[in-house]
């Protein structure tokens, strides 16, 4: 096995083909670090990861395990019923949106009902963020629908479809928060 002590290290350095580089440079770096009382890790810059990566990651997260039968089964059953009502409303709300341009006010009301049941979830930053997004998008879609009636345009329709798709995505995420 090759011996790798300091002597070998210095010998290896001497074998380098090119340089008369400052022989104690690494020592200088270490000394600079120790003078400043910092580690190499602290000396090197930190890189900031893109927050948007969360979106990609969140679609591949492990799902919550199904609830087990326990004394709180009635509360669970009530929650499931409420969520089912919300899910149904979201489904039919989506159908009605495409047919007659209905608003998402029903979904918002149902979300508020859900929040009475699960206040801690509705107080979470994720929920607040998603709910604000949902409200903004529904307002934007309503405006587009009005505009579309006055001035039919394929591009407006296309944008409206895009917003509907975003709304569905957000509703799905909101549902996941409660599951």
């Amino acid at each position, binding site marked *: 096995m090759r011996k790798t002590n300091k002597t070998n290290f210095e010998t290896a*350095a001497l074998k380098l083909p*090119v340089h*008369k580089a400052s022989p104690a*440079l690494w020592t200088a770096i270490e000394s600079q670090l120790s003078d400043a009382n910092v580690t190499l*890790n602290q000396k*090197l810059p930190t890189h900031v*990861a893109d*927050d948007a990566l969360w979106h990609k990651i*969140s679609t591949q*997260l492990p799902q919550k395990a199904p609830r087990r039968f326990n004394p709180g089964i009635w509360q669970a059953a009530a929650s499931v019923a409420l969520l089912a009502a919300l899910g149904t409303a979201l489904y039919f709300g989506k159908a009605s949106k495409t047919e007659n341009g209905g608003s998402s006010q029903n979904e918002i009301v149902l979300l508020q009902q859900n929040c009475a049941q699960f206040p801690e979830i509705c107080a979470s930053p994720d929920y607040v963020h998603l709910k604000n997004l949902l409200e903004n998008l529904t307002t934007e879609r309503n405006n587009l629908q009005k505009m579309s009636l006055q001035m039919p345009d394929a591009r407006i329709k296309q944008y409206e479809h895009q917003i509907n798709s975003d709304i569905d995505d957000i509703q799905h995420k909101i549902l996941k928060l409660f599951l």
Partner: protein
Amino acid sequence: MQEQQLVEQCRKGNIVAQKQLFMQYKDAMFTTLFRITGNKQDAEDALQEGFIKVYHALESFRSESSLGAWMKTIFIRTGLERIRRQIHFLDIEAADSEPVWFDDTLTGEMLEKAILKLDEGYRTVLLLIEVEGYKHREVAELMGISEGTSKSQLARAKTKLKTILGKNIEHNA
């Protein structure tokens, strides 16, 4: 949220806790991955892949080490898998990189630029030992090499780094 609570909530699939874990560790892990892979795109891909592994592996986390240290091992393995095919343990004579130009003040950015100029094998060992604080035994296990190779690669990495930095000093003199 305390670490243990955060882990418990993540295990239960609480998306808020999972996001908090991501926000809490993303920059530290990304920085490590950027240094290992040497580029932003690979680092981002490895970050994404690493977090998915972490969420799935949290069931096996036993608090024998800190959560951060446990996660870092997963991310380092993920980063290494990404560059594994590129790693070659070069002979001293074969190793020569383009110089990195800098002024007389050695900043963290300059030092990092020089480290990124090292070949993957040298760079990874140097980073794991000198930056991340792993022992040669641990590096050997992580990289699937012998302790002896880890030690010799570190020595050569330092020599090479001297060379890269020294060229600049000579150039600026």
